[in-house]
């Protein structure tokens, strides 16, 4: 078992220890589920035609984004599923959908199962703070970190937006 001090060292100075240890199944998508905020709304993909709003399958490989809907009450499961695409061992895309949202992809998906909010926060925050990663993926991770809405995340936001 690795000592806590060594882990702390790795954490502060090493490149994404948790992510590196977790995304060890090659390139492709990695997913995990976590209990989300029940008032968050439903994150999925929708077809909008006039007043009609219909859920549709989210294609992970497509360019389109995600809508968080306040009106799709039946679609809310209270759980968020995060998808992180790994390329060359590094996170390249971060997306998140309601656990009920149908998702498709041509790529492989490694299912990390259900994790606690703290575990999910850890992985996302690691991406946010990885300065060698593209800013886009860091910002995606930060956005979804906030949507999951843990107390620790809001404490982090408070520090991020208070310091200058």
């Amino acid at each position, binding site marked *: *078992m690795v000592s806590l001090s060594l882990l702390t060292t790795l954490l502060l100075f090493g490149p994404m220890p948790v992510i590196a240890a977790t995304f060890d199944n090659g390139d492709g998508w990695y997913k995990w589920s976590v209990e989300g905020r029940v008032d968050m709304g439903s994150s999925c993909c929708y077809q909008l035609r006039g007043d009609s709003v219909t859920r549709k399958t989210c294609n992970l490989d497509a360019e389109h984004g995600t809508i968080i809907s306040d009106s799709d009450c039946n679609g809310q499961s209270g759980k968020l599923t995060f998808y992180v695409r790994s390329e060359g061992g590094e996170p390249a895309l971060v997306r998140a959908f309601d656990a009920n949202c149908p998702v498709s992809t041509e790529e492989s998906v490694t299912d990390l199962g259900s*994790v606690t909010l*703290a*575990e999910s926060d*850890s992985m996302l925050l690691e991406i946010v703070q990885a300065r060698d990663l593209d800013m886009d993926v860091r*910002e995606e991770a*930060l956005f979804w970190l906030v*949507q999951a809405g843990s107390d620790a*995340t809001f404490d982090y936001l408070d520090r991020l937006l208070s310091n*200058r």
Partner: protein
Amino acid sequence: MKNFAKLVTALAFLLVATSSPAQTGDTDENESLRMTALEALISAPPERALPIVDKVLAGSHSTELKERALFILSQMETPESQSRLLEYARDAEGELQSEAIRMIGIGGDSGAMASLGDIYQGGDEDVREAVLEAYLIADDANAVFEIAANTSDEGEFSSAVQMLGAMGANAQLRDLRSRAGLSESLIEAYAISGDADSLRELAQDDSNPEMQVHAIESLGIVGGADVGPTLVGLYRGATNEDIKEAALDGLLIAGHDAGVLELYREASNADEKRDLLEYLVIMDSDAVWDLIDSAFEGAE
């Protein structure tokens, strides 16, 4: 898996507790993250987001970040957030005050909107401009009408009616004519709002020749299928050169070269034909080439 879970949890607490987002001072990178963090708050519970937004606005952050914070505040839809936004609209200075006012227009909260009138009355030129923009954003034509109807300042009236024109507020503009009388800025507003009917009526009213000229020219701005024949008719019935010139200017603005060609063919004296031909050339009309061909063939 259990040990791994414990490991990750411990690391999570350590990471969040020890992470210091701005260790090396403010950088573009941190600014970008701050902007994303702020924008992500738009879907956060207001009771969690408001204290953070407050800190951003009270802190020494960039104007751009503070303006984004004001936008987030405008979207929260709680009495506390709208009250805070109103405070900034009243008490902040410079661009932030103007932005807070515009954000009230974007949010559209009725209580906050109702307070804009007082802010307008007590504000300087920039504040008043921001209030008018907020009314435009919120599509509150009646509020702008009240400003126009109750001012004796020509500049203020002009700004307000231009805004009504941009809002397409034809009913309010027509009402202003009976209350405030006719003016060049009101006629321009009719043109901006596309009120061809009012302009057509004014174009045919020779009781005020100066305003009649403005109305005729403004018909060209409005455009539309009926405007060309109206302007041709005004030219034909013109009793003075000013009206003729205004009608031609209107045809030029509307791009109705067919009408100018029609008048050219009807014209009986050389001076008039020359003037009309000049307009056709300025309009880059293909008809000019037909006329040149006819001239060579001796038909003209």
